[in-house]
Every structure is written in structure tokens, then in C-alpha cells.
């Protein structure tokens, strides 16, 4: 007895599926659409909160306060001052953090020496560092710079040390066999291998560091975004306070997106290379 089988429908290729999907559907399901949706959700939530609670300033009020600050000539000077302090603090944290992280990753002795101080530093919040630095260094630039440095450097150290410990044993053995000098091993083997960890460490440093700089300016005075935010807070004008916070957070987001993200993609372009 013979049986006949129904013809199996040919499966569509990815090119065919791609052609069959309308352009609007592709746009709606893209990463970009997800990011826009997140921003819109946050914005709607903010508008709702400001409509429900009088002490939550809405977007319109925040923009108005920001425009007022611009017209008073307060923005550029204070923002520039904070950026300078923040930049110096984070740069110091990156340099010192990478150096100590590499030592901790390469040397058992180095790890034993730095492990406890780094753990202690990790557990101290930015607010404590800001109090201490204001007491130690007064109301100048040094307090926010050192606070930024102290709050962010442990995160760079921990990330870099973890990355260095993960450097391929095979590549390290190859370098030993060929007697590659230590300086070249660090430059060509260790640092590129830990780029991802360094980038993660610096991202942490930026996110944690900006807390530090704003808190030190809040308590230490002497101008800057934190000082100006406190000025509005003391005046019981939350719109002005929120305007400064939005300005700085916006800057950090743009910095991450357009500078750090691109730098990381450039550093990892070798990963996209495939046979």
C-alpha cells in the first residue's frame, strides 16, 4: 500500500522574512524604539508625579528655572567649575585605579597589600568623603576633586584587578617563553585584555564620582552645580534645584552615550573582525 504525503511548505529565508516585514514594524521593534519608549515613559511618569504632588516640579517649571539661570549668567561658570573638578577627580581615579588594579592583578603580594584598604574605601559612601574632605581641605577646589577621586577610585581598582586576573594564561605563557619585557606585556597584552574592565571601571567612576563632586560642593560651597542646587534648596525653590540636577544628569548621559560608548566600540573593533 502506498501513502501520499502532503507537500511540506518550504521554510522562508531570513532575506524573504526581512522583505515581508513592513518598515513601520521594523522601526517599532528596534533598539532605538525601546530607548525612546523608556525616555517617554519616564517623561510621562514625571508629568504625572508633578501633577499629583505640589512639591514635585514639572518639566515646564524646570525648563523655566533653567532658562532663568542661563539669563542670570549662572550656568556656564558654575557648570564649568564642576566639570573641571569632576574631570580632574575622575582622571586621577582612572590613572591611579588602573595602576593599582594592574599591580593587584599581576602580583599576589600586591593583592594582599591593597585588598583591605580597597574594601574599606568601597564601603565608605560619598557623603562621608565629602564631609571629611571639606574638613581637611576647606572650601576650595580640592575638596570636590578629592571626594570625586576617593569615591570612584575603588571601583576602577576592583574592575581592573578582576580583568588582569582573567588575562589568558596561554598568552601569558607565550610572553614568558619569548621573554617579552614587562612594560610591553602591560601595554600590548594586559591593558588591551582589560579594556572592557577599564571601561566598566571608568563608567562606574563617572556615575559614582558625580555624587561625590555634587555632595562636596553642596557642603563645601565655593561655587559649582552642587553649590547652586543647594542655594535653590535653601530657598525652598525645588524647581531651581531640579533644574541643576537635570542639567548635570543630562550631561552625564550624553557623555556616556556619545563619548564613552564610541570610545569603547573603537577599542573593541578587533572583535568585529572575523574570517
Amino acid at each position, binding site marked *: 500500500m502506498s501513502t501520499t504525503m502532503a507537500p511540506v511548505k518550504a521554510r522562508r529565508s531570513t532575506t524573504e522574512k526581512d522583505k515581508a516585514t513592513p518598515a513601520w514594524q521594523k522601526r517599532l521593534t528596534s533598539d532605538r524604539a525601546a530607548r525612546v519608549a523608556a525616555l517617554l515613559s519616564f517623561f510621562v511618569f514625571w508629568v504625572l508625579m508633578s501633577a499629583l504632588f505640589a512639591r514635585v516640579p514639572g518639566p515646564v517649571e524646570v525648563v523655566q528655572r533653567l532658562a532663568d539661570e542661563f539669563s542670570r549668567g549662572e550656568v556656564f561658570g558654575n557648570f564649568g567649575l564642576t566639570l573641571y573638578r569632576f574631570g580632574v577627580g575622575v582622571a586621577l581615579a582612572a590613572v591611579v585605579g588602573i595602576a593599582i588594579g594592574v599591580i593587584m592583578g599581576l602580583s599576589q603580594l600586591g593583592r594582599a597589600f591593597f585588598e583591605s584598604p580597597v574594601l574599606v574605601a568601597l564601603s565608605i559612601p560619598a557623603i562621608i568623603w565629602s564631609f571629611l574632605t571639606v574638613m581637611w581641605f576647606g572650601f576650595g577646589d580640592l575638596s570636590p576633586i578629592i571626594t570625586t577621586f576617593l569615591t570612584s577610585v575603588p571601583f576602577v581598582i576592583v574592575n581592573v584587578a578582576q580583568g588582569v586576573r582573567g588575562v589568558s594564561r596561554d598568552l601569558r605563557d607565550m610572553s614568558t617563553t*619569548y621573554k617579552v619585557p614587562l612594560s610591553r606585556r602591560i601595554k600590548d597584552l594586559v591593558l588591551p585584555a582589560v579594556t572592557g574592565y577599564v571601561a566598566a571601571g571608568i563608567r562606574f567612576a563617572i556615575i559614582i564620582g558625580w555624587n561625590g563632586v555634587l555632595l562636596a560642593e553642596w557642603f563645601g560651597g565655593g561655587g559649582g552645580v552642587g553649590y547652586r542646587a543647594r542655594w535653590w534648596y535653601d530657598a525652598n525653590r525645588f524647581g531651581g534645584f531640579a533644574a541643576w540636577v537635570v542639567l548635570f544628569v543630562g550631561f552625564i548621559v550624553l557623555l556616556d552615550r556619545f563619548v564613552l560608548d564610541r570610545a569603547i566600540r573603537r577599542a573593541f573593533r*578587533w572583535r568585529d573582525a572575523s574570517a
Partner: protein
Amino acid sequence: MAVLTIKNLAKTFNVGTPKASRVLDDISFDVRGGTFVSIVGPSGCGKSTLLNIISGVEEHTSGDISLTSDAGGPARMGYVFQDPRLLPWRSVMKNMMYVQDDRSEATVSRAKKYLDMVGLAKNADFFPGQLSGGMQQRVGIARAFAVEPDLLLMDEPFSHLDAITARGLRAQLQDIWAQSKKTVVFVTHDVVEAVELSDRIIVLQPGGRIYEDITIDLPRPRRQTDPTVATLQAEVLGRLETMKAMSRTASAVA
């Protein structure tokens, strides 16, 4: 003059613990300059450990090992591993230069010469990820020759490649070696490969002792299709089979 001299060398892992295991025992041989010596033996007989000890990656438990250069100073070593071990984030040329002592023009042109010899001169600016496995291994071979080593160590460099690529690379290795006449210690479990490439084959037996030291006196270049090569390959394989049978009997009696 002997480039490499090994006397009564032994290696025990986990010394002084209940897990102690001796992988090399009373190994003695020397390798004269300009010869190609293969070390063959079954898996676990200590071939790669011996190579790692010679290279300095691993320390030996007892015995002596000495390396001399023709110039009399410290010997320069090249190493071709089972896998290419290239820095994935550096171009082929930068990988070649990573292991060099200096960045002089002479060194750069030497690196280019060996890249050319393995047929990869046009790929100098490629990242390793843009090359096939066989091409990456050719970079590893060029890198090892380009350091102008007094002693070149090779640890089963073709074992991860398909048969056709491995055959092509063996022929290429013979050509480069014929031109450079470097001293080579080549570890392999493939007797056929060892006979094709070597002047001498040292057979290690389970337990890490030397079973036999065989001289291969055949004209070069050798090809597997050559009947004299095939005959000798069969003879050496036969001796290895005898060794394996004796090892099995010895362990059964024990």
C-alpha cells in the same frame, strides 16, 4: 656543538603531597645545532611537560638542563604552540613584533621576510580573527622563526588543523627549515609526521622515560608518498606498538 643538554631530568607534580605524580624520569639527551629532533610518545607520557621545562614555563624537580647559543650568550627561543596564541587585538605584523627584542628596520624586514615565507605578506595588517585557523598557525610559525631562535620548540603545531592544511604546513615547515637550519625540538604523537620532518626521534614511554632514540637518515625534502619514507614510518610505528604492548604487560604484572 650541543645547543640543548639535558641530564637526569625529572619532574614530579604535587611534590610532598599524596597526589604526587612523576611525569618525567631520568631524561638525558642532547641536541646538536641545526638538527630537527622529534619527541614522540603516547598521551600523558610527559612530552609537552618536557617542552615547557625547556622553554622555562615549567620548573623541573631534579636534574640539569642547559641551553647555549652559537654566540655563547643566553640562548634565544622560539615556540610554536598547539594553538596559535596570537594577541587578538593586534594586527598580524604587530603580533610578529610583540616577541622581538627591538623595533629596528632589520628586525621589521626579518619579520616581513618570514611572513612572506609562510605566504601571508599581504595579510600583515589583518587582525587574527580575520584569518582562518591554518593561516593563524602560519603566523605562529613565522613569529617563532622571526626571532632567529637558537632553539625552536614546537608542541604538536598541526594537531588542531584538518589533514590537508596540516600536510601543506608540514611541507612549508620543511622548506623554511631547510633554508634557516634552526635547531628544532618538535613534540608530536604522530609518528608519520615525525619521520617526515626529523633527523632524530626520541620515543618517550608511559612514566616519562626515554624508550628509544632513533636516527632518521633519509634525504630531504621528504614526502609521505615516497616509498622509503613510508617504509621507515611503518618500522618506527612497529617499534612503538612493541613499546605499548610491553607497557601494558608491565602494568598488568604490577
